[in-house]
């Protein structure tokens, strides 16, 4: 009786083992699955340029051909024009990649730089009429919008009055902003940074702030007043795109009193304290001379404006 039970059990077990015994998985079928391993297409000069200039040295991939799944599917967007891809990335390489590598080395840059970039030809429109310039997801993927409007000095139809600001604030500022986020997400800036003018933060109300009002409250842009991390990222970004002279002009030019009652003298002091914390942070955490980096970034940007 007992033996029979055991036998039955063994029988059942062995059958289940046999049933599990499969032939080696046949992978030849996988070759016919279209798009397995990503979309493919006949390579062009653009693909070659991106591979040689970004993938090989920095492991940065740039997707410019339309892929709906990279975007918010509720938005109407269009792909970029092919003739904008290399210009956008030549500029980003000069004003972002090269300065950081010169100051902190390639190991630092390759370790922390976002690896996946997506380009969209148009801006992304919000329901309230405002537009999105760029989005970043977890320090890995960055989407740049409005690529078809990208024009720098030397390109046909370049109008300094409008285009220089567009390039500066839409692309370069976004890039520096997102990269600053990645840095502080790895090693947070000192807590003192949050104690400089905490009660003046606006949260979601930042969209209603005018630039000069925000600056009089000690925020370099309205968006900086939305939260501590964005305050940090915006400060870094504006300092890097404006250069020391430009940043000093902004700070020293403040006059009057803000609607919240902050005097210009206080605003200047807030901005200077933030600047000083950032400079120390870059030095102590990343061993980067911020003013030297700032000089390199602005000099590189200047040639395109």
């Amino acid at each position, binding site marked *: 009786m007992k033996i029979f039970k055991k036998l039955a059990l063994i029988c059942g077990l062995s059958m289940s083992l046999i049933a599990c015994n499969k032939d080696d998985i046949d992978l030849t079928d996988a070759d*016919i699955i279209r798009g397995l391993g990503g979309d493919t297409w006949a390579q062009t000069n653009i693909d070659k340029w991106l591979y040689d200039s970004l993938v090989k040295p920095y492991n940065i991939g740039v997707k410019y051909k339309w892929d709906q799944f990279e975007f918010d599917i509720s938005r109407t967007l*269009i792909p970029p024009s092919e003739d904008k891809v290399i210009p956008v990335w030549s500029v980003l390489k000069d004003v972002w990649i090269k300065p950081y590598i010169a100051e902190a080395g390639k190991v630092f840059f390759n370790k922390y730089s976002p690896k996946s970039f997506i380009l969209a030809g148009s801006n992304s429109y919000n329901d309230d009429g405002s537009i999105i310039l760029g989005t970043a997801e977890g320090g890995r993927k960055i989407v740049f919008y409005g690529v078809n409007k990208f024009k720098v000095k030397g390109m046909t139809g370049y109008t300094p009055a409008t285009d220089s600001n567009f390039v500066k604030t839409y692309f370069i500022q976004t890039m520096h902003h997102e990269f600053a986020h990645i840095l502080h997400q790895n090693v947070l800036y000192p807590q003192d940074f949050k104690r400089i003018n905490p009660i003046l933060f606006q949260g979601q109300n930042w969209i209603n702030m005018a630039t000069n009002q925000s600056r009089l409250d000690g925020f370099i842009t309205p968006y900086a007043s939305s939260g501590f991390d964005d305050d940090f990222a915006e400060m870094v970004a504006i300092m890097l795109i404006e250069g020391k002279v430009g940043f000093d002009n902004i700070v020293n030019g403040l006059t009057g009193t803000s609607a919240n009652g902050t005097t210009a003298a206080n605003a200047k002091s807030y901005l200077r304290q933030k600047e000083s914390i950032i400079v120390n942070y870059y030095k102590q955490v990343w061993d980067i001379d911020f003013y030297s980096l700032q000089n390199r970034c602005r000099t590189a940007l200047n040639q395109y404006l």
Partner: protein
Amino acid sequence: MKKNIIYVFAVITLLFGCKKNDEYIFDQSPDERVNKVLDDLQAKLANAPNGWKAVLTSAANVDYNFYFDFNNENRVKMISDFTKESSTDLKESSYRLKAMQQPALIFDTYSYIHIIADPDPNVNGGTPGEGLNSDFEFAYSPTNNTAKGDSLFFTGRFKGSKLVLVPATAAEETSILGGGYAKSWDFHTISAYNTYRYGGQTYSWNIGGKIFTYFKRFTLGSTTYDINESTFDPFAKNITISWLDAGVVKSATSAYSFGLNAVNFKTPLVLNGVTLNSLGNFVWSDANTSLTANVNAGTQTITIAGAAAPLLNNPNLPAEFRNNSINQDTYYESDYGFFRDGVYNAFGIDQLTITNGRYYNMIYWAEYGSNYDLVAPLFVVNGALNLAFGFAGINNNAANPIVKNGMLSLAASGTVGTNPTTASWQNTMTLLRAAGGHYIVKKNSTNYDMVSADGRSWISWSLD
């Protein structure tokens, strides 16, 4: 005991239940089938000897013509009738076929087909964030494509626009590459949309309008027909033609699309004893400021030219226009000032400023004062609308009625507040008080056009 045996058998049955059956309902695996569809489609696209003639019907139901020349290296050359330039300049970009939920054709870098879908209103005049409701990513269903000859049918994956590809003949390809669609653009010379002013700059509409009067006229058979700006929309490609039948205005309306040196009416226009299917072979005359076209691809021609007055002025409309405003105690508004001689916002009225205020819009308010109608710009000051100054059309019933001879007359006038000496405002006031007065043309119950007596200037008012 018996129980145990049952368990054993149950386990065995369960385990053998895992045995797979590799037979497909169809004779091939899904991957093989999708690959076949895509390979067949690729071969069809690339092997058309004279390229493809295509019609893209946007989700807003507007037709756009295209020409595509696909190769096997993911490249496509195209022509589009969207603008005059894109009708002649062959542009190359990329495309790819992809197995998504359905097999799909994706135009994956920017070209003419994306202009229509672009959410930027500065590119195509569409709605910000929406564009003109069109696609550049299309699903291809092989079952929808059987028994339809050589044509290929696609459906937009995002907005649901339709794309139909027909193999072009050698003659059609020659005509398209020779600018056949560009010649169709000559039809739009009868529009007044030539340029517009904004922010102190003058821009082109890309419509190429050349007949700057509000009313246009042509004769076909023994009937005189009217086309006017209120019902001719070259952006949405829609037109209404009206005529007088025993003193009564009759009209026919249709959307149209471009053909090769022709426009085709989607619903044939049944006019006074004649049906209009198409107009073509356009010849513009600078000397006469008129457009000659062949009717229904035949030898009969019509010549469309500008006119100062409507076929029949409805004398009751000025009073109706004013009463809407008076009865509802509200105003009509217009984004900008006068459209004049082919220039929208002709005087650049958006450049008017007041202290701490920027221009918002123009308003017409009947009986704003006890004896006057107000026409004025509104400004935004600290987030609120502000009325700083304005033009007053005196309505002093006995001597100076505003409604006179079926026209809206603002000839007797004064001003309210301190009016600036800026040319944009002074010119606007001069036009408002023009001696001949203004026709009122009704578009619908809340939208009216106020057209000067010479037909050269107008403002489109819409009730707030």
